[in-house]
Structure formats: C-alpha cells, structure tokens
C-alpha cells in the first residue's frame, strides 16, 4: 500500500513538475553553452559508472555544468558493477542520490517502485531527442512501459571480438571467419602456449557475450530469447551453439582460472601479448588500439558460424542499445534543477566520450565536434561496420529477467570449467522454466 502511494506520489510530482516546466520553459546547457541557465545554489549527489573526480569525461562534463549552473556542486559517487545490488539496496532504504545512472537491469524495478521520475515531459520540453542519433532514440530511450526515465549515456555499442595481428602472424594462423577455422586457431595457439582468448568470466556479461557470439548465428535473439522463454537450451540453435562452445572450451580456448579473472587481469593478458583474442564492447577500442598500435585488429563478424554458412546472420551482434542513462530520483529536492543538470551532464559527457575516447557509438549527435586525435583505424573500421550490424539480443546484465541472468551466469561458469553439455542444457532449461512461468 505504501509503495503504491509512493508510486502515485512520484507520478503526481512528475506531473506537477512537467506543468511548472511548461510555464517556465526548460533549457539545458547544450543549447545555451557557456550561458548561465540557473544561479540556484544546490549541492547535488550523482552516482554513475566509472565517473569520479579523476575521470576526464566526468571532469569535462562537470566543467560544462559549472558554466551554466555556477552555484551547483555535484558530489560524485562511483557505482559498483554489481548487477544493481547496491542501487536496489539503497532504493529499499531510501538512500538514493539525486541523480543516478541506471540501466534496464534495474530501471524497471526502480520505476515500478516509484523511486525515479518519469522524464517524458522533460525530454519533450528540452527537445532532447533533437540531440540524439536515431539509433539511440529507437533503442536507448523508451522503456518497455512506454515512458522515458533517463537521459541516455552509452549508445548502441556492439560487443566485438578483437585480436592481436602480430600473434596470428607469428604462428601462421589465419584470422578465422568460421567455427572450423576458429577451432584450428585455438588448437595452434594452445600448442604454442598462447592463450587463444582471454576472458573475465568472473563478471556476468562477458559469459553472456561469449554464448551469444555462437547462438546468434542460428537464432539472432540469443540469450534475450532464452530469458523470455521464447527459446530453449535444447532447441536446434542453442544446442548446436553449446556443442561448438564446449568443443572450444575443451580445446583450451580460455585461460586457466577464467571464471576467477576480472577485467584488468584478462585485458592485461591481451594487451601484453599473452592472449591472441579478446571479447569486449566497442568502448574497448579506446584502450586497446593505443596499446597494441598496428597489431590491433577487430573481427568484422563473429567467427562462429559453421563453414559454408558464414552469411547466416553474419552481422548479428550481441550488446547494442540499452535504456542506460541518468535518472532523477524521487528523493531529489529540486527535480527541475536536477533534470537540467542531468541533461547537461549526460550530453557533454557523451560529447567528451566522442572527443576524448573517439567513441563513435555515442547516443548524441556529434555534428560540429571533432575528436581530439584523428580517429584510429579501429574506430574507422567500426564506423564502416555499424550500418551492417543488427541487434536482437541484449547484454546479459541488462536483461529484465534478473533471475535468469544470475542463473545463466552460474551455468555458463560451470560450462567453462568442465560441466557437461547435457547438464548445462538441462539446468538452463530448468532456469528458463522457473523464471518465465
């Protein structure tokens, strides 16, 4: 009862704010760059991934906020990558910051509980969609309930397979384009004590990306389809994917102890030449390309299709867009100000992502802005690939079915360290049945 009251109060508050916005007109700093929009004094709290005082993107965006809101100070909190545990716990105890970065793994629950504001009217008043690229408007903005809850951060980012050209050349290995060639490459690398593909399977989403890389060739809905109960682990597409993956695991595709490896460990193996391949989001180009230089390579498509069937869903990709961005919590004292600040911050952070990190998948339009350095070959290649890529699956950690994502991660970890395909399929099916009924 209390929660529904809270939700109703949240909606009412949103409506009243929208009304006041209609009266006052709402601006954010992009359209009035450098001008003072509000001289209100406020100490706001903001929780985001990666950001903090040391982060150049946050520093850049915060400077832009200060230009337009000189009397606003933001206290940053870094959000742990813990599948939303911290956010959910803090929401339950009424301890959320004013502005919170959220993604679809937690957004629905926060919205349902009335913990965050509906931003439909703010987005409209600010004409914020004018600043977003079409792909972001289509896939990163509106939640399944038809409302907008966030100013987008992170655009339509594909998960890519990267490789070290020097290692492939040194051992005379052809860059694989299908599963058979991939298996051959894995075998050759193992014979030469090179880790074929370093991964950080201690985290949930990489294991989802690995699985998706295989199943998408036969079923483009991948793990998203499984999480909805639209597919099962023993259907033809999934069973075939598991069979191929298991053969690669047995051939030594991943490093020993991969289920216990974090990003830093796995990435260091790739960047230091101990591993031939690596799977990560397109954002990783900014880290890997400078480190590997000319040896940095990106697979044009996942080399996981059966030989002769390479064109099957050739550019089907895992990852993609997500309703990730800055939300305004209902505990914020001045939601209008928070919305303006969040919009300003989100916009300029993404511009900085483009300018500093050369990320070509940001959700905001970058017309009129230049990257600080000329785009690297990796980013250029990604720009060419983007129009071809298709997304029907999702990042594992953003699946709305949180119980499935947790159980699936557990099962994938077991498969990676030796569980049989029969047990894996049976357990995943059990998990689908129990979480989608």
């Amino acid at each position: 009862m209390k929660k529904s009251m809270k939700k109703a109060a949240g909606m009412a508050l949103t409506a009243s704010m929208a009304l006041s916005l209609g009266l006052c007109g709402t601006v954010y700093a992009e359209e009035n760059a450098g001008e003072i929009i509000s001289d209100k004094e406020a100490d706001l709290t903001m929780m985001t991934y990666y950001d903090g005082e040391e982060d150049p993107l946050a520093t850049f965006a915060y400077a832009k906020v200060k230009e337009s809101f000189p009397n606003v100070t933001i206290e940053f909190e870094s959000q742990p990558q813990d599948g939303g545990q911290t956010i959910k716990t803090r929401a339950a105890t009424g301890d959320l910051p004013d502005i919170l970065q959220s993604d679809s793994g937690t957004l629905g629950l926060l919205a349902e509980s009335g913990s965050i504001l509906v931003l439909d009217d703010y987005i409209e008043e600010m004409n914020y969609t004018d600043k977003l690229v079409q792909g972001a408007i289509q896939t990163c903005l509106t939640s399944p309930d038809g409302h907008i809850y966030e100013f987008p951060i992170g655009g339509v980012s594909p998960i890519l397979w990267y490789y070290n050209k020097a290692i492939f050349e040194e051992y005379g290995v052809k860059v694989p384009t299908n599963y058979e060639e991939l298996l051959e490459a894995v075998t050759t690398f193992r014979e030469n004590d090179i880790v074929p593909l370093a991964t950080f399977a201690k985290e949930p989403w990489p294991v989802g990306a690995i699985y998706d890389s295989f199943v998408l060739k036969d079923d483009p809905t991948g793990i998203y389809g499984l999480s909805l109960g639209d597919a099962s682990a023993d259907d033809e597409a999934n069973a075939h994917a598991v069979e191929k993956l298991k053969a690669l695991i047995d051939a030594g595709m991943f490093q020993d102890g991969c289920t216990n490896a974090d990003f830093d460990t796995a990435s260091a193996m790739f960047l230091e030449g101990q591993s031939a391949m690596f799977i990560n989001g397109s954002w990783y180009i900014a880290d890997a390309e400078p480190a590997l230089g000319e040896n940095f390579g990106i697979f044009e498509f996942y080399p996981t299709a059966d030989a002769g069937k390479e064109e099957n869903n050739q550019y089907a990709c895992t990852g993609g867009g997500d309703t990730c961005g800055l939300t305004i919590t209902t505990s914020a004292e001045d939601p209008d100000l928070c919305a303006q600040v969040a919009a300003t911050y989100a916009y300029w952070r993404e511009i900085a992502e483009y300018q500093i990190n050369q990320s070509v998948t940001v959700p905001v339009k970058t017309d009129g802005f230049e990257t600080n350095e000329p785009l690297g070959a990796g980013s250029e290649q990604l720009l060419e690939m983007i129009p071809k890529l298709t997304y029907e699956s999702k990042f594992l950690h953003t699946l709305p079915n949180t119980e499935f994502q947790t159980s699936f991660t557990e099962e994938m970890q077991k498969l990676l360290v030796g569980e049989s395909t029969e047990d894996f399929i049976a357990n995943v099916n059990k998990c689908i049945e129990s979480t989608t009924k």
Partner: protein
Amino acid sequence: MNKVMGNKKVIALFTLPTVILFTVIVFYPIIQTVYRSFYDWNGLTAPIFNGIENYKNLFADDLFYESMRNGIIFAVILVVFQVGLATVFTMILMNPRIRGKRFFRSAFFIPAVLSVTVVCQLWGALYNPEWGLFNKIFEVLGLGYRQSWLSSLDFAIVAIAFVNVWQFVGYQLCIIYSSAKAIPEEYMEAARIDGASLWQLDRYILIPLLKDTYKMSFIFAITGGLNAFAHMNILTKGGPGTSTYTLTYMTFRNAFTVGKYGYGCTSAVLLVIQCLAVTILVNWLFRNKDGAVFEGGK
C-alpha cells in the same frame, strides 16, 4: 554493595539498556526476517503474503542443498584444521623447552588482525593457476600437478576454507592457549613427578581440562563454516557457478542479486535454525556429566 546486588529491581534497571540494545539489534531483525520469509517481496515494491510457498520452493531448490553441503564441508575443515592446528600449536607452546613463545604467539595471530580483503588478495595470488606460488612449487619440483584451485567445481570450496583456516587459526590458538595457561602448574607438575610423558600430559591433563574451551571453539568453527561468506565473495563470487555457495551466499544472491528478498529471508531463517541447532548440539555433547571440569583457575 551486596545489598544493591541483591535487589532484583536494581539488577533489572542496570541490565535494561543492554537488553533493549540487544533486542533492537539482534531480535528485531531476526523477527523481521522470519516475518518477511512468508512474503513474495523484491525489497522495493509492496510485499505479497504467500504463506509457506517460499519454504516449499526452498526445499525443492537444488541450490539450497548445494549451499548446505558446502557449509558443512567448510565447517568440517575449520573444525579439523583450525581447531586441530590450534591444539597442536598450544601443545608445542606449552612445552617448557620451547623458546620464543611470544614471537610465535604474535606470528600466529597476525593473520587474524588482517582484513579479509587483504588476506583474499594474498591467497588469490597464491592460488593463481598461471603464476601462483603453489603451481610454481609443483613446476619447480618437476611435478605435472597444476591446479586451477579456485576454478574447480569440486575443489574451490576446500581451497577457500583453507584460506579461512590460515587466517583464523591464530584466533583459535589465542582462545585455547590462554585457557591452557590458566591450568594450575601443580597438575602438570604432579603428572610429571608420576612419570607422565609429554604426550600423556597433553592427552590426559591438558586436553580434558580444556573441555569447556573446546566447546566454545567448536561452536565458533562450525557456525563460522556454516555461515561463511566474505572469503568466497571476494575470491570467487560464489563461483565457478554455484560451487562455493553457502547458505549465507545463497541468501545474499536471492535477496540482492536476484531481487527475491522474501525468498532470501527464507534461507536466512534456515541458516539461523542451523546455527542454533549446532550450538545446542555442541553444548549437549560437551555437557558436564560428572562435573569434573576445570573452570578457568577458580
């Protein structure tokens, strides 16, 4: 003074703050946990009463039995190795011919004052399958026995338990050794005059007189094993898969990762019952049948 201490109202008055504090901090959360275990609740939206459905689901959940099994393995390892090693170290330190006792006492206790995070970082490095100390030792010895210690479905829980053994053996040693030191020297002296060997001294004098201390040590070790959490959370996050889950970890997963707070409370209730049952059982096993137990030098 005696008059004051004989007044029950005064005793009640003085103990009231502690009782209130204990009730608020311990009993209220336990009652809340039991209450919430009868609800379908994600921690944020309105809870829905579902009777004993959570308990029925729990007893049908494979993860519950895996978590229980892991808790028992963990507890057995702590009892055998932590309490066992602490006993052996106590026997050695009680030997009058051993020198540098203060150094050893401090050295054994140092890991106990380190944070779990530091200890796990250290052991995570030792267990590393590529460049960790253990695999390197096997390599240097020319043995082909290499292990992915923390990535084994069967062995990871054992590997983590030994981290706990290493860290807190000094704590158990502190408890057992301080009790051993409190045993009047005349008992030992009399036995020595009667010709008892070192082993006989320990076997027939020292260990029997530490019965009450062992009761406490066993309760600490068993309940510590059943509700272990921190070491696996840092070292493996419960993995690979669910192979290092204990009931505490299962509770954490259900409540905070999956968002089934009510279901998480159910496994928490079972954990509390387990720990209570173990405490009662150990107390019963160690009950004083003949009253011939040394009580701390009184």
